[in-house]
């Protein structure tokens, strides 16, 4: 599991990409609520 998270030393870049993308999607969906 920790090997998976490490992404061969690129963890910061890979998870930084997917994490921020997920955050954007969450904010986009939340913006629909009035």
């Amino acid at each position, binding site marked *: 599991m920790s090997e*998976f998270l490490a*992404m*061969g*030393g*690129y963890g*910061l*870049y*890979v998870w*930084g*990409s*997917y994490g*921020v*993308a997920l955050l*954007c*999607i969450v904010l*986009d*969906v939340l*913006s*629909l609520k*009035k």
Partner: protein
Amino acid sequence: MLYKLASPQAFFPVAGTLIPWFGALAAALALAGLYVAFIVAPTDATQGEAYRIIFIHVPAAWMSMFLYLIMAGWAGLGLALNTRLSGMMASAIAPTGAMFTFIALWTGALWGKPTWGTWWVWDARLTSELILLFLYLGFIALKASIDDPLRADRAGAILALVGAVNVPIIYFSVQWWNTLHQGASVSLTRAPAMAMTMLTGMLLMALAAWMYSIAVSLARVRNIIQERERHAQWIQA
């Protein structure tokens, strides 16, 4: 049928029915895409695991351009036919288009650092994609600054249509100029220059992004309809 749906009143319930379907499709496709991206696809020989950013970067970049063209198309339709729903659709698409543009730029920076050695370069591909973000934000700001919705629709449509010239510039930038960004790996006219599993993962994520965009745009256009038609009898009923 189409003419009937062009009225906000008729479109409102139809959009409401479609949203859960597109939302569920988006979630299922994204799960399948992530499975391929992280479990099935092997480590890249030259880039190691860093290349897995491709599965979010490329679909987001595609979507940023597609959504702009669709937004400009709706805006242009509104300008030509004076249909109220068209301008609302354009407004509904813009924030999600801007989001995908930002994701493309952000993931590009995080991919550029380990592979190119830099977060950012002012090359044609990156710069034109940044201009796309400004076009989306300009479109949103312009429409928000004009009180009369019909005037806002018209002004926004002109901006959107003029800005559409940027989309082919983004797409062909890697051919027209010497860029640090690589050329297209996927095209309709020749075999893709990548492994089948990678292509599958990318296409699944791209389809998920499409379904997501449709669901969110429909939900947003419903909000806009409610806001703009709040004085109409049908919405108060």
